[in-house]
């Protein structure tokens, strides 16, 4: 059990997917300066990540031992299909949510965090349960990073930033500061 908790906490903060592993940067840097949108995007990601983790566990256990070279292609096919299914399901079950998520859902397919999760989970040899904890932790970490960045950007809109600095350069430097802050989580739960 301790191992599972470590996997979750490590994926969420110690080795945060966005701030330490550089996955999921497109939504992170491009998300509008609205905390609510960021939160919704993050939740959508958690959902897709968890489902991807389950699918990848099955692939790794039953299909890929016979054809390890097809790993990448099968992952992509699975991810694209999952996102398609999720999109259709959300559209059917909650049209309001679908409208609010808007363009974000299809964009999740090219979000390197999803494929990154599949690849990391495979490289580390996580089983079904470990993979789930990993996916949830990663999703939580992603959401945390997204929300933090969105709230900082909300304030930056009103701050006295020189015109020449406004834009992606400044956002990246803010991201760097966030990343440094998250380095403080290293060593958590490592009571040897």
């Amino acid at each position, binding site marked *: 059990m301790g191992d599972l908790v470590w996997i979750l906490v490590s994926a969420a903060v110690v080795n945060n997917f966005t*701030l*330490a*592993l*550089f*996955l999921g*940067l*497109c939504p992170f*840097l491009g998300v509008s300066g609205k905390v609510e949108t960021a939160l919704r995007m993050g939740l959508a990601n958690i959902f897709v990540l968890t489902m991807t983790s389950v699918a990848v566990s099955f692939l790794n256990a039953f299909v890929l031992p016979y054809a390890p*070279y097809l*790993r*990448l*292609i099968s992952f*992509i096919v699975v991810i*694209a299909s999952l996102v398609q299914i999720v999109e259709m399901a959300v559209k059917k079950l909650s049209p309001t949510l679908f409208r609010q998520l808007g363009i974000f859902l299809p964009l999740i397919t*090219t*979000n*390197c965090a999803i*494929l*990154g999760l599949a*690849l*990391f989970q495979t*490289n580390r040899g996580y089983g079904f349960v470990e993979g789930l904890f990993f996916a949830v932790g990663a999703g939580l970490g992603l959401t945390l990073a997204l929300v933090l960045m969105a709230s900082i950007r909300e304030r930056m809109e009103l701050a006295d930033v020189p*015109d*020449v*600095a*406004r*834009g*992606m*350069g*400044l*956002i*990246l*430097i803010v*991201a*760097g*500061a966030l*990343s*440094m802050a998250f*380095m403080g989580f290293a060593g958590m739960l490592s009571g040897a």
Partner: protein
Amino acid sequence: MRARTPLQAFTRGVWRENPVLIQLLGLCPALAVTNSVANSIAMSAATIFVLLGSSMLVSAFKRWVPHDVRISTYILVIATFVTVADMSLQAIAPEIHKELGAFVALIVVNCMILGRQEAFASKRPVSRSLLDALGTGLGFSIALLLMGSVREVLGNGTFLGYSVFGQNFEPWVIMVLPPGGFLTLGMILLVLGWIQRRAQERVTVRDWPRGVGAAASRKAA
């Protein structure tokens, strides 16, 4: 920007529409693997290989691919070349492959490559597509090498493993850690934006690439 000559198809990917610095695509690998120059070179080589290969195939077979399945086909082609690149790198340079980790495989979700197929290779002859791919790949490499050099020299005191500053240099370790990636790219973009702004105060706005400083150029127009 529409390329009027073959040379323009090549150069615009290198500078004007540099995929990393101007269009801000492919940032995941640009930040993750640039902690050393050797890794940057390897990642650039792998990406160029995938770009060239997929542009060539997509352009050669564009007549046979129905519109509805074109994205899936492009992704299949790209994924194939990425798998080939991954396996080849693992066989040729296993240590570097270990450092790059999963990021070689992540080339497949690099929006830059899919974007090139959709916007260019699927509509142009093979020779032009190859030039475009080469230009984009070169632009990508330049950005990566720039970042890799800054990060390795400052963060490790070495360049390609060779010590630059001598024994007494205390390396600025943060540069080879994740925050260093963000900070380096951020500083580069800030400097670029400043250069563009300065030059813009002398020339018309029409010729400027989109991206950094876009908001400022819109205000000045």
